[in-house]
């Protein structure tokens, strides 16, 4: 009983503060208008004064049901009392907090004070709306609504999503799924070569035809995702495999973009190199930069390496921008009119360009995948696990770390060149620190050292923000919250790396050599 009161108060205070926060930032109004959009009782652009009150009530109730579900979750739910009491306490306490808050803004409303100087989202119409159309006893309504909502939530989770089922699902869902897969013959179906080919064919068809259907906007977004996959694959080699925390990855991106730009732009050099040659040149230039950067700093480890490379990224950007090199790089105004790819004399449309990026991504995944499972990849993983022991096991750590930097930089150079060519422009502001941070984020979110993780991470980091456009200015807030939740729930990443089952594979290939008992654990 005591712990349930304590937990209820703790959770209740969180829920209360969250709702107050939503009210103050105006998110509650946005959520209500989104609900209106969903229910069809208000248009998306409707003014606060036109929003139906019921939407706000639904929003608060949903929040409370969710909170009630959480409140009842940690309990051993054997009786209704154990379920409902924590829910009731949570609801009552959060309701109390919100009621006090509502009472305060009620006073503000009654005195006609305009808060917008301090809180830009909380104007008088908004307060009017939050007070359920200026009701005098709104705080009582809030208290009642939240208490009932939390109890209802707890009851809902108790009766509909049954506790024992939930417990089972948490511990054995993976096993059950595996068993199901085995039993139902899906495994045979998945392992079948024909299935794989059909799947690949479908994927190829989709990648070919989708861009012609979804229009230039989505082509641009998905192209950016593709370029970020390239960058992620490169950084994954450096950070995920060889374990060197490089924060200045954008430097290689910039070198690639500028190598491409300087070779193809009319100003300042007018070299007018062919697109394909310039791409190759950009890759080489970036790889070379990787080696040159690596030579002096590879003896640094961990934090020190991170700081040095962070500085390197900034140095490159500032050099590009500087007056000193204006004659060479065109300074802050950047490079214009970069080369576009041509094939048999035809210029590329945005659809062709998307296809080009997809082809590069597929080739890059192929290369990264083969590297990862090779002698080189094993050496990188060993270095990232324990550099001292790796060296004592006969691995030339310097050589392999340098190789990782060069290859990772080459991927970034390709990404930079494609990015610059697609925009037909590149300037110093394309190469800010945020690019490095974003790429590092996508590698971590996807799962360090995992190639599918990079792909998933790139979609989440560059694709999901586009899907969240409905949230307007709250997009980044929601996105940040999503990232935090994701990292708390799955710290190892969305698609963590697995290791190849070499033993099982070998015996699959050579069944004659299997151990006598025939039992190969996998």
């Amino acid at each position, binding site marked *: 009983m005591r712990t349930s009161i304590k937990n209820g108060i703790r959770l209740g205070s969180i829920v209360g503060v969250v709702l107050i926060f939503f009210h103050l930032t105006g998110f509650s109004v946005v959520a209500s208008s989104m609900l209106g959009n969903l229910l069809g009782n208000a248009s998306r652009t409707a003014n606060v004064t036109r929003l139906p009150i019921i939407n706000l009530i639904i929003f608060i109730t949903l929040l409370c049901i969710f909170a009630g579900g959480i409140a009842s979750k940690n309990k051993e739910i054997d009786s209704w009392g154990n379920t409902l009491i924590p829910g009731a306490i949570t609801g009552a306490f959060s309701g109390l907090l919100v009621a006090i808050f509502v009472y305060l803004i009620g006073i503000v409303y009654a005195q006609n004070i305009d808060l917008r100087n301090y809180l830009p989202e909380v104007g008088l119409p908004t307060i009017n709306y939050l007070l359920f159309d200026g009701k005098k006893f709104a705080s009582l309504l809030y208290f009642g609504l939240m208490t009932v909502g939390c109890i209802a939530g707890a009851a809902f989770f108790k009766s509909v999503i049954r506790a024992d089922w939930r417990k089972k699902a948490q511990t054995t869902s993976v096993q059950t799924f595996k068993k199901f897969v085995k039993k139902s013959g899906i495994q045979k179906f998945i392992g079948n070569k024909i299935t794989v080919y059909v799947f690949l064919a479908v994927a190829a068809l989709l990648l070919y035809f989708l861009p012609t259907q979804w229009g230039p906007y989505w082509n641009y977004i998905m192209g950016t995702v593709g370029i970020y996959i390239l960058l992620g694959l490169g950084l994954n080699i450096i950070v995920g495999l060889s374990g060197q925390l490089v924060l200045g990855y954008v430097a290689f991106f910039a070198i690639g973009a500028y190598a491409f730009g300087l070779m193809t732009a009319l100003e300042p050099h007018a070299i007018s190199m062919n697109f394909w040659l310039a791409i190759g040149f950009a890759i080489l230039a970036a790889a070379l930069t990787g080696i040159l950067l690596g030579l002096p700093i590879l003896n640094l480890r961990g934090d020190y390496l991170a700081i040095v490379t962070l500085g390197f990224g900034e140095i490159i950007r500032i050099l590009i921008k500087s007056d000193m090199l204006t004659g060479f790089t065109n300074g802050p105004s950047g490079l214009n009119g970069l080369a576009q790819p041509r094939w048999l004399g035809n210029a590329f449309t945005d659809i062709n360009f998307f296809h080009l990026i997809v082809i590069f991504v597929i080739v890059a995944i192929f*290369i990264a995948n*083969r*590297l990862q499972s*090779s*002698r*080189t*990849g*094993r*050496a990188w*993983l*060993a270095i990232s*696990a*324990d550099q*001292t*022991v*790796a*060296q*004592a*096991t*006969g*691995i*030339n*750590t310097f050589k392999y770390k340098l*190789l990782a930097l060069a*290859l990772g930089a080459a991927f970034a150079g390709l990404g930079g060149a494609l990015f610059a060519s697609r925009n037909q422009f590149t300037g110093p502001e394309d190469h800010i620190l945020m690019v490095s941070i974003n790429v590092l984020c996508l590698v971590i979110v996807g799962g360090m050292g995992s190639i599918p993780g990079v792909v998933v991470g790139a979609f989440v980091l560059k694709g999901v923000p586009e899907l969240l456009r409905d949230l307007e200015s709250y997009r980044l807030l929601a996105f940040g919250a999503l990232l935090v939740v994701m990292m708390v729930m799955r710290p190892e990443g969305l698609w963590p790396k697995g*290791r*190849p*089952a*070499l*033993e*099982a594979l*070998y015996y699959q290939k050579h069944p004659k*050599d299997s*151990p006598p008992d025939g*039992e*190969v*654990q*996998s």
Partner: protein
Amino acid sequence: MTETVIQTHKLSKIFGGLTAVDSVDLTVPERSIASIIGPNGAGKTTFFNCVSGFYTPEEGDVLFYGKPIQGNATDKICAMGISRTYQNIRLFSQMTAIENIIIGKHPRLKGTWLEAILHNPRYMNEEEEAVKEALHLLEFVGLEGLGDHLARNLPYGAQRRLEIARALANHPKLLLLDEPTAGMNSQETADMTAFIKSLRDDLGITILLIEHDMKVVMGISDQITVLDYGTKIAEGKPKEIQANQRVIEAYLGPGAAALSKKFQRKRSHDA
């Protein structure tokens, strides 16, 4: 006359003002098991680290088949054919057991990153041979069937043996074992002792061993070297070391030798 595998000549390692290893001479002939014993802090592991290249000794030479190797990087020394294990197990814990062994084989493989991308026949052959040999080694250390488990998920004894398998994958001529039976129960210790013997007898590997368990040391060593405060205080066959006064004093303190003699007399009297 058997060849000398490793020889140190007046080897000294100094940390600041502390001489951890003080002009130690040691000669290990081929196909033998040589043990280094001594109280805690005697400089055994430091001596190991000088031989395997972790430290560069301030003075003296380390000769491997007559060639000086001190000052080389650890990866070069490893490639010459000196493998080692560690006092605290240091496997690549995120990788599978079999991958650990294949990494141990790294200096004996030639595949480059370009070959890895191209998958040319030579590379594919080499990889398959590497897996095959790793499976053999896995069986040799008694871990068959556990190859695809992550190294960190293996039981303690298995991790010790896996570390040795990783060292063996390098086809070493000299194997340095740092307390291979630390933390093992008597059954596991007996297994490990037999296993180390078989390394010498079946594979012809020369072994240099640090060990605290006297039963193991006395049971398998061809030659024992005793270090105390960085200096060599005794060397010889197990029997000679057991009777050496300075050794007993180093372990049990001054005056202990007399006590132990008395004890021995009493014991023989009882018998």
